[in-house]
């Protein structure tokens, strides 16, 4: 970013710490620019305070988290998928965010664009949750011409400054956003606020704001969700995976098919909001679900909840190396297919 951003009139700054980095991203976002930061799990831990501020003040921004394993400093150069729950639940209070998980390197590019589009559409922080394996990978990448990209910009207010209410509920759950210097002279705060952006310590204020901030994501979950389905039409066993784990899973289901086992894969591209509805729809015809992720059990809990009472077999993976396909294959077989 340091070398390429200036080529497109962007600015880069190396901050003193992650707390400052994310704060400056929110400042840039409210200044009308698209802004992002990139870090890994320990950095996200430090950023959580102001990610909450971005949620509360509805600052569009993108956080790239190239995940490693923890806890604490853990293995800071080794890949893992250790932050799936941290990005979702790390902030205090009721928070809804969007998180995307790229698999091919191409998606590091495509989903970064998509992350900005979603953040601008919903005025919410969007995480790009790559595992370090994808983050460190060299692979074919096609960068399309700019005019072929779908670029979404935040909705700006059309009213006169004196009529502008920065957090007014306008039916779409996402209020139009004025930026610094636009002449709207708005006030925004991390405190619970009323529609005018002023502190509101009332019960109704908290209830109304938290519901709207969450519902703007929850009610659009189906629209936001992206996933890839591989041979799910007739499958008995469904493998749920994301990021690098989906590559091993793809090999595992191919081998399973060769051996006469009807296996399929749901590769999650959107991790949050979690696509309960998709798993609910697939699960009745399944003998079981295999979840493979590079941690000791994070998203598997969501899958278990969504597919209940279907049996779920979890294949954890700790340490640098991704799953071997045989490990996932063994779990597929173990479900009696």
């Amino acid at each position: 970013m340091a070398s390429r951003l200036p080529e497109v009139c962007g600015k880069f700054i190396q901050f003193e710490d992650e707390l400052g980095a994310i704060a400056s991203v929110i400042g840039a976002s409210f200044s009308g620019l698209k802004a992002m930061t990139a870090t890994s799990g320990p950095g996200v831990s430090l950023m959580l305070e102001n990610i909450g501020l971005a949620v509360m003040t509805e600052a569009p921004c993108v956080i790239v988290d190239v995940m490693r394993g923890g806890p604490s400093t853990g293995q800071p150069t080794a890949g893992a998928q250790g932050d799936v729950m941290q990005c979702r639940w790390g902030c205090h209070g009721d928070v809804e965010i969007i998180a995307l998980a790229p698999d091919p390197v191409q998606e590091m590019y495509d989903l970064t664009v998509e992350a900005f589009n979603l953040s601008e559409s919903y005025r919410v922080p969007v995480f790009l949750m790559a595992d370090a394996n994808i983050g460190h990978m060299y692979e074919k990448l096609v960068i399309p011409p700019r005019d072929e990209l779908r670029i979404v910009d935040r909705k700006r207010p059309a009213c006169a400054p004196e009529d502008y209410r920065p957090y007014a509920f306008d039916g779409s759950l996402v209020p139009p956003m004025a930026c610094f210097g636009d002449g709207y002279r708005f006030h925004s705060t991390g405190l619970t606020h009323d529609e005018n952006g002023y502190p509101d310590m009332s019960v109704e204020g908290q209830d109304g704001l938290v519901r709207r901030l969450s519902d703007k994501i929850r009610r659009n979950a189906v629209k936001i969700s992206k996933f890839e389905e591989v041979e799910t039409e007739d499958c008995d066993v469904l493998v749920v995976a994301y990021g690098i784990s989906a590559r091993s899973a793809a090999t595992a289901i191919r081998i399973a098919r060769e051996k006469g086992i009807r296996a399929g894969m749901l590769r999650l591209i959107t991790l949050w909001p979690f696509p309960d509805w998709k798993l609910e729809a697939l699960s009745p015809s399944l003998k079981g679900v295999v979840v493979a992720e590079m941690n000791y059990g994070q998203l598997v809990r969501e899958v278990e909840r969504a597919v209940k009472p279907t049996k779920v077999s979890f294949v954890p993976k700790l340490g640098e190396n991704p799953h071997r396909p045989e490990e996932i294959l063994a779990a597929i077989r173990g479900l009696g297919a």
Partner: protein
Amino acid sequence: MNDWRATHPLRKYLRMERFPHIWCQGCGLGIIVHCYAQALKELDIDLDKIVTISGIGCAGRASGYVMTDAFHTTHGRAIPFATGVSLSRPDLKTVVISGDGDLFAIGGNHLIHAARRNVDMLVICANNFNYGMTGAQYGPTTPMGTRTPTSPRGSIERPFNLVALVAAAGATFVSRWTVFHGNMLKDTIKKGLGKRGFRFVEVISPCTTGYGRLNRMDGLEMMRRLRDASRPMRVHPTEATIDPWREIVVGTFVDEERPTYNEALEEQGSGGGWA
């Protein structure tokens, strides 16, 4: 709307519907906001081109009373937020109003680095020697020996001298006044608004409910002490004594020019941003 709101001489610069403010009787923050608004008025600045940013605490509420674009950030993060604004919109004037706890305890790291980088912003720091909003606990500015709820036997920690610290970190304009010095404070804010780079104005401000009550002083007594202890001097910032019981050296201690962060970026051809 009451008549005073419609006729107040600074009504164009303040969010009149937000008054009366939340601050205690005798608190100096009202004077600081007044001086800031008066400075904006006298400079006749386009209010659409100002962003006022604050952190958490009593002083953090200052951004909510001024008629500019305004943002009330999290504890200690006003300066990095302002850095994001300053880099994105060099055409706007970025102003931070916050307290000593916010800027020098939890936010101290950001403050020294913004000063080092000479990021374009004016920082007005209300120093009341304690964490006023949360119950007068001692902080990095509390004079040694002061009894507070968290230093019941007297603080044993040596406090920061804010102007010396900020000057050492690289600020290009460093000043200190007290809320007793309304005109000087207003003139200094005007001067600060007219300059580029990292500018810092410390304002000694009484916390009557916290620091004052603990030390058995009312608002008037605290204001008298500010008057009596203040010495306007032109000295090196390290010699600008700060001891609310004996001597508070006031004045401007640093006033120099050095390329700002945005200027350095432009010089390198890495400009860009909003324009």
